């Protein structure tokens, strides 16, 4: 193992270890969610974020508490990374009273006004105008916040995305569009669904700048995130970050992922895994020891086991909840 060239900066070291821990929490949480699904304790669709952890964790490291975020249905990682509790998320997955939507939303539909997390949306592309509207509100109020609007490579083809792009640039709205290009929209590869595969260029005809980022490298994401957020915050309007990433699992729990060779996922896992590689880097730089990482793993596992316990012992919602929260 090479010696660290410079003594690590302590404050920075803590921040780096925190990013490692946040990514690992998502990974272990998702593995457990997959298991609970297999046991029939989670129902419906369940879209795991395994492989993409660096995107949300890097962005959250760049964001400030003023900034909002909104995404689609592959949302468990976003919620954990913005500080929502593992217990509340897992209990929503099991449809229990202790869940963020008191069991009424499920995996795809969770929110936290407190953490400025605006969902959790099941309709592909629908969150893009919504995120643009949150940015509109920021500008209207003059509050300096930026809305981070996440969507997939598949969603990037929906018409409402381009309606939003146009207005966002026209009105110089403080929004960062983060395209999580994990190479597939369900079973359709980017090459088969997109006439222009470089998503960072999707804003060209609206004059929106875009940057391609290695979405498997949490530090690269953080750096690009800082740049984009400050661009949007300074009144220059929207900007696009294309995150090159990969989902290891099927689209949802019931997708056998037969449309790609097994070796493809195995190779990404081997060569670009965002967590393993970042862990190795931390050790090489002397920021963390093998033992530190083990301790983090133990801590994270404990959080996840507790969340599974909470999520399976929290009661189902009361039947009266069927008719609450419709209109007030």
């Amino acid at each position, binding site marked *: 193992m090479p010696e660290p060239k410079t003594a690590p900066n302590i404050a920075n070291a803590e921040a780096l270890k925190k990013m490692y821990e946040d990514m690992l929490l998502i990974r272990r949480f998702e593995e457990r969610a997959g298991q609970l699904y297999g046991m029939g304790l989670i129902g*419906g669709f369940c879209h795991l974020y395994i492989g993409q952890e660096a995107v949300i964790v890097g962005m959250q490291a760049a964001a400030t508490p003023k900034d909002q975020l909104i995404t689609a249905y592959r949302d468990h990682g976003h919620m954990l990374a913005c500080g929502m509790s593992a217990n509340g998320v897992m209990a929503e997955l099991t449809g229990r009273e202790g869940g963020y939507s008191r069991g009424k939303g499920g995996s795809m539909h969770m929110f936290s006004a407190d953490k400025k997390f605006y969902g959790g949306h099941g309709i592909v592309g629908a969150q893009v105008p919504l995120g643009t509207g949150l940015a509109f509100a920021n500008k209207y109020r003059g509050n300096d916040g930026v809305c981070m609007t996440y969507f997939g490579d598949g969603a990037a083809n929906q018409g409402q995305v381009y309606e939003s792009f146009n207005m966002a640039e026209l009105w110089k709205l403080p929004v960062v569009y983060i395209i999580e290009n994990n190479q597939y929209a369900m079973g359709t590869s980017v090459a088969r*669904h997109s006439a222009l595969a470089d998503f960072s260029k999707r804003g060209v005809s609206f004059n929106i700048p875009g940057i391609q980022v290695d979405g498997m490298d949490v530090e690269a994401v953080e750096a690009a995130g800082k740049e984009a957020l400050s661009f949007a915050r300074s009144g220059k309007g929207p900007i696009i970050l294309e995150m090159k990433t990969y989902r290891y699992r099927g689209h949802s729990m019931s997708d056998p992922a037969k449309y790609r060779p097994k070796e493809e996922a195995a190779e990404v896992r081997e060569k670009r895994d965002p967590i393993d590689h970042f862990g190795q880097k931390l050790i090489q730089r002397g920021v963390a020891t093998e033992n530190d990482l083990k301790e983090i793993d133990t801590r994270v596992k404990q959080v996840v086991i507790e969340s599974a316990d909470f999520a399976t012992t929290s009661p*189902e919602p009361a039947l009266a909840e*069927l008719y609450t929260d419709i209109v007030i």
Partner: protein
Amino acid sequence: MATQILMPALSPTMEEGKLARWLVKEGDVVKSGTILAEIETDKATMEFEAVDEGRIGKLLVAAGSEGVKVNAPIATLLADGEDASAAVTSAAPAAKAEAPKTETPAAAPTAAVAAPAVEIANDPSLPAGTEMVPTTVRIALRDAMAEEMRRDPDVFLMGEEVAQYQGAYKISQGLLEEFGDKRVIDTPITEHGFAGIGIGAAFDGLKPIVEFMTWNFAMQAMDQIINSAAKTRYMSGGQMSCPIVFRGPNGAAARVGAQHSQDYANWYSSVPGLKVIAPYFAADAKGLLKAAIRDPNPVIFLEHEIVYGRTFDVPKMDDFVLPIGKARVVKEGKDVTIVSYSLGVGLTLEAVEKLEAEGISCEIIDLRTLRPLDIDTVIASVKKTNRIVTVENCWPFGSPGTEVASQVVAQAFDYLDAPPGKVTGKDVPMPYANNLEKAALASVDDVIAAVKAVCYRS
């Protein structure tokens, strides 16, 4: 302490499956992510991964076993230093905590109904002695499309994942192989765009079948369906035609939440310029889909995911086409008329079995087509039974059942011995929680209660 590895549920509607193949053997060390086995569901073969680390103790279920129930133990997992004889003291960590009030976890509503004990009347339109072939609704729909595509080169299929993936719900299985990528076309996720492209192609005389992965996503395309497809014949003074079929699963599957569970029967049936079909039986799915593809109008074809895997008789005929707009008397009876369509017919059959055991004789009408509505068949029945209950799963406001009741009251008021009864989905967005979802859907008990109410029985 050895733990059990349980048979996983691998889709929203799976209750049992086949353990196709073990990829580990007794004694193997596994860790999170190790692939343990291949498991077949009704739709796919899935790999099943380990979450916990340990060593495989015993394989409890042999490879090739069919019908293994979800949550049945399939292997034991040993911790460090244990041998295979270690007593199994607990299930996998989270399994021990059963939900306080949960009954069966994540069971699909009324999934896997056995062939109903209620005698189903033969379709009078069939020649006597026609051979019947048990077929799933899924295959019946596929066959309908394949037959029409063989017959008419202007018919093509377009939608998300319909070609290479063979359909998100496997309805288009084999079509890409037979007809090629000119006629079986994968689209990007752009419903508004490809619905419009289909409609434009239909203006030029092609006969597109546009699949929506589910009808929930057709809301993106609603403007094209209503403003362009439904109204153009009228607006053009009859010059323009739009021979297109929009099809896909409608209504709630199992626990997919409010944005993925809506039933659109009332929306589309309210639109002049559309025909709307919502079959239950496989034969109707086939005969009516063929008719829809040949029809010169835009046709909305509402399927149901829960019904896809159900098996019914389909007549073996070279060209089995049914008339659009004709209801079918599924079973004759004297005390009450129950009018339904789509999955509601399955609910009705289950309820009727119990009602007849209590001495209430039920006539069941399957509307099959919602627009145009075959009200004559309903009125004739009500004149005989003097009571009517409608059964459906959409929201109550302005539902097809509401329309049936209104027309019955207008045309046969004097024949009614009780106000019409109505069973629908509850007037709420679909909740995710298992208990709330069950409560939100129309149930067999709801049907029984409504029938008893119109018969003044308790």
